[in-house]
């Protein structure tokens, strides 16, 4: 409850007046219940049973007027409640989206898109339950009060007799709710497990078939599906018991009233009309309203708190990721005695590594796959901090730079290009929001993006990310970085989907732009264009010109040698077509 409440509190506090209005208008809606038994009793005793049809009709007419007034009250209550519910939904969407994005961006785990989407969908469920609870529980609770008040005036003995029953039922229901909630949460978790596994297997249908693993996959999924079914049934069973308790508490009063009726009637404490009126209070007032309150608070209330607790966890943003510090100044990018590893038990990717990349220099990084080139790129960009040693830009450790300044000074471009559904202009000026058209034109011409832009209808046309090829997306991202004010650009295989000609053009454009350029090379041909090459292998970092490396780095000789020796023609092939994918 506390965590769920924390999430909702700001909205509730802000909208407390609206909530008061909901309660007030719902109070009006309970008016007919308050009057129903009394008016029915009057209509019978004074009217229809006393031979005065006009008085009977008058009493019924009053009841009709009360119903119209109630309808008006409900109408106003819905209006207020709608406003509140939408405010809750807005707040939840905002918190969850922010939380999900922060988790994906700053978290160590790779993001799972399906899970995020489901959490956002839970917001919608929370919205509907909130609406129900605020509106129906309030009015139902007021109806319970109205019926009890009406009944008290007519047959107080019934109320006195009921008190112990209500107390016992409340305790039982509270105890049941706790277990129900546990089971409900377990069922939600089982559902998430099932969803995750089904997604994995269906994403890999080709691989399941190719691995001759259909039965294995089906058996895995079946286990998950059965676990989910078992968990749902466990929730249902408890729900049944609870309904029984609620029903018992709702129906017992009628039996009690009928049992007491003979003595009440004989003693003159109750007239025939009043007996009928009391039954009306119980049967059409108390019973449905009490059921609504108990079921909603029990089911939906627990459901809502469970949902809110989940949403609250998803909304948590990692605090303190961005910090203040010195503004970044352009200068050399220096790695000083840096050691980095992913976990305490894994081998270090960098072990006491030292490296100086001069301001404005162009460097290529090569190494066997999986050796840690991407990690090096990440460390050089200040996204991961080495456990020992420092990375410095312009003589200042990256860790002591202001985060915003660091991020805008060093641009890391990963292999998977981020292109979003917005205009081309929005995508291009992502890192340089103030860039003017002249700057845009220059970048587009330099990078070689004009044809793509023309084909899609210019700067203000909408980008549909899925309709662009991987190469086109990479080109768009290269243009984005070209336009950015970053002093250091780190390309982590960011041109792997471009053909060699386009790749060369993009790299040259980035070089002419000025600033430092670090290229984690996907192809040897790209490495050969850089005046200085950095070789990463098990023994650490070695850097130098091609000639020097050919003499003193076995890894370099191995990587380049293999590439050269396949055949003369294949070398040209690498340079001209690359490994572009069919």
């Amino acid at each position: 409850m506390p965590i769920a409440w924390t999430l909702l509190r700001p909205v509730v506090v802000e909208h407390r007046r609206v909530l008061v209005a909901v309660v007030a208008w719902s109070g009006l809606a309970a008016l007919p219940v308050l009057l129903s038994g009394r008016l029915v009793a009057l209509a019978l005793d004074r009217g229809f049973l006393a031979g005065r049809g006009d008085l009977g009709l008058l009493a019924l007419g009053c009841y009709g007027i009360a119903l119209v007034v109630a309808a008006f009250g409900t109408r106003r209550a819905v209006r207020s409640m709608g406003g509140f519910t939408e405010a809750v939904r807005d707040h939840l969407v905002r918190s969850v989206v922010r939380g999900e994005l922060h988790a994906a961006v700053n978290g160590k785990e790779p993001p799972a898109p399906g899970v995020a989407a489901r959490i956002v969908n839970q917001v919608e469920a929370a919205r509907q339950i909130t609406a129900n609870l605020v509106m129906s529980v309030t009015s139902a609770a007021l109806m319970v009060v109205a019926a009890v008040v009406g009944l008290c005036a007519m047959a107080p003995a019934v109320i006195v007799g009921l008190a112990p029953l209500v107390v016992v039922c409340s305790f039982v229901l509270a105890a049941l709710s706790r277990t129900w909630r546990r089971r409900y949460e377990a069922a939600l978790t089982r559902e998430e497990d099932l969803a995750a596994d089904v997604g994995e297997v269906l994403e890999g249908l080709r691989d399941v078939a190719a691995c001759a693993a259909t039965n294995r996959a089906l058996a895995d999924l079946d286990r998950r599906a059965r676990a989910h079914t078992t968990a749902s049934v466990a929730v249902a069973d408890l729900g049944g018991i609870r309904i029984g308790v609620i029903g018992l508490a709702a129906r017992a009063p009628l039996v009690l009233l009928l049992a007491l009726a003979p003595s009440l009637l004989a003693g003159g404490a109750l007239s025939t009309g009043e007996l009928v009126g009391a039954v009306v209070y119980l049967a059409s007032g108390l019973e449905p309203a009490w059921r609504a309150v108990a079921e909603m608070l029990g089911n939906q209330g627990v459901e809502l708190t469970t949902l809110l607790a989940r949403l609250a966890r998803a909304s948590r943003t990692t605090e303190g990721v961005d910090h203040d510090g010195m503004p970044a100044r352009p200068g050399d990018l220096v790695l000083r005695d840096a050691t980095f590893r992913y976990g305490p038990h894994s081998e270090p990717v960098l072990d006491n590594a030292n490296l100086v990349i001069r301001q404005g220099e162009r460097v290529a990084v090569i190494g066997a796959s999986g050796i840690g080139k991407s990690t090096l790129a990440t460390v050089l960009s200040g996204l991961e901090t080495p456990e020992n040693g420092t990375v410095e830009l312009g003589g200042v450790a990256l860790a002591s730079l202001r985060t915003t300044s660091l991020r805008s000074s060093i641009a890391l471009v990963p292999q998977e290009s981020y292109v979003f559904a917005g205009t081309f202009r929005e995508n291009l000026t992502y890192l340089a929001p103030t860039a003017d058209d002249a700057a845009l034109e220059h970048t587009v011409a330099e990078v070689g993006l004009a044809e793509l832009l023309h084909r899609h209808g210019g700067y203000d046309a909408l980008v549909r990310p899925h309709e662009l090829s991987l190469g086109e997306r990479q080109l768009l991202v290269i243009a984005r970085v070209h336009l950015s004010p970053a002093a250091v650009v780190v390309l982590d295989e960011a041109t792997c989907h471009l053909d060699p000609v386009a790749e060369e053009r993009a790299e040259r454009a980035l070089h002419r732009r000025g600033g430092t350029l670090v290229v984690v090379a996907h192809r040897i041909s790209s490495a050969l264009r850089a005046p200085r090459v950095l070789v990463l292998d098990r023994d650490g970092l070695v850097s130098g010109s091609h000639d020097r490396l050919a003499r003193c780095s076995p890894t370099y000789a191995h990587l380049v040698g293999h590439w050269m020796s396949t055949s003369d023609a294949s070398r040209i092939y690498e340079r001209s077509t690359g490994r572009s994918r069919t």
Partner: protein
Amino acid sequence: MGSHRLLLGTLRSAGWYGTGLALVALVEVSTALALPMAVATAVDTLTGSAMVVVAVLLAAATVAEMAGVVLEKRAEAHGALRLRRSLLSRVLGFDLGTARRFTTGDLVSRTLQSTTAAATVTMTAVSLYASLLTSVGGVIALVLIDVWLGVVLLALVPAVFLFSGWLTRQLSANTERYQGVFADLLARLEDSLRGARTIRASGTVERETDRVLAVLPRLSAEGREFWRVQEKAIWRANLVMPLLQVAVLAVAGHAALLGRITPGEFLAVQGYFGFATEVFRQNVMLARLARAQGSAERVAEVLGQPLPPSGPAPLAPGPGSLSLRGIRVDRDGHRVLDGVDLDIPAGSTVALVGPSGSGKSTLAEVAGGLLHPDSGAVSVDGQRLDELRREDVRGAIAYAFERPHLLGETVADAVGYADQPPPRDRLVAALRTSRAEDFVNRLPKGSRTPLARLRLSGGELQRLGLARAVWREARIVVFDDATSSVDTATEADITAALGRALTTRTRLVLAHRLGTAAQADIVAWLDRGRLRGFAPHHELLREPDYRAVFGAHTAELAGTA
């Protein structure tokens, strides 16, 4: 399979849950209908026996209610499970052509949401029948108490009916718009989540949040509109029903005045009125039935997809020759493969070469039975694939892909992912052959590292994918660009190790590198969906078009070399 048949099937398969639910509903309806009259008798006579009747009826109603809730959820859960099972086993039997008609997200939502919604049909159907019975019973009871009550009620029914229709139309239009905006918000969020690494590097997480949330005002507007419609609806409903109620009570009062009915019966009128109008409160149930119907259609569509043909014949042992005859494949209205004939001798290595879009990957899929051709036949050691047992075909042909999708719990589990997983030593040997052993050993828990927490480079992933294909004793192995992300040096290592490990196997290799073609026994040269040449590499090199496949410069160079 139609959605109606599917729903009927679900109803039937609900078995004793369904029967039980129907019985329970019957008990609920009859106790409900009996109660007002029993209470009326108790009020009028005040006898002990009448009160006992009321108490018994109330107890029976409570028990039926409990049983109803339990059975309803059980029927739903088991119905969904049954639909999920048949849906998943159908989908896992698809060939790739059929699978590509759906996106993964779509299939996941059909497996999870559509089955659940379709399975509510049992409960919804029972509940609708019960409410109909209740209403009819209520009207009959009113007529029995006093004929005029029934007349008044029936006269006012059309108004209620028209109103329900208006409400449903308004709300469904609004709901559709609301869900549209919601989907837009989700799409934006998913975009951003995919770009998490860039966003982190750019320090733009706050701006991304704003970008995703930019649609929120539109969502709010639609949400408010929903409440406005609700407000109107509630206002109208709250006017119509009470007026009807007051009118019925007035008629009952008049009858009481004339002594036609007792006070107890006056009370019963109130109760029966509620029952009589029960059928008009079924908006929710009708909407649910519509949803179940729509969902059942989504499930039935998947179950109605054809499975690739297979037969009962077992695959006889053989050396692994592969023969393709007249293979034609169409996709999205254009011809991907157009009458390809190809004979691959057992034990040979054949390189599949061709420019982008020539149909290489499709041919590789057809050759191993992953994709059923629109016409033509594939045979392994003289036996046609579509006459063989599916599991025999799958066992005889292994694949290594450019982007393998790893499944299973741990690294070892993912590499040995199969109906019949390999013994440990064969797995280790395969990891060694594919040069994956070193980096796997460096993982926190070695080959027992959970897949979920693994971050692999493209090259590492490909090497695990290779290992997954290597341990199997498949007579034919297809390599679909399976080492493209591995650096050239490691690739050469792997090629050599594979050569030693798979000496007698038939290999079909797709590659862009000239070296790969040069090392193969024969090259199958594909061009625009047709087989253009089938000869050793050095012979094909005489053709300028063949040289052009490897790049324009090569063409000039090879001519002078």
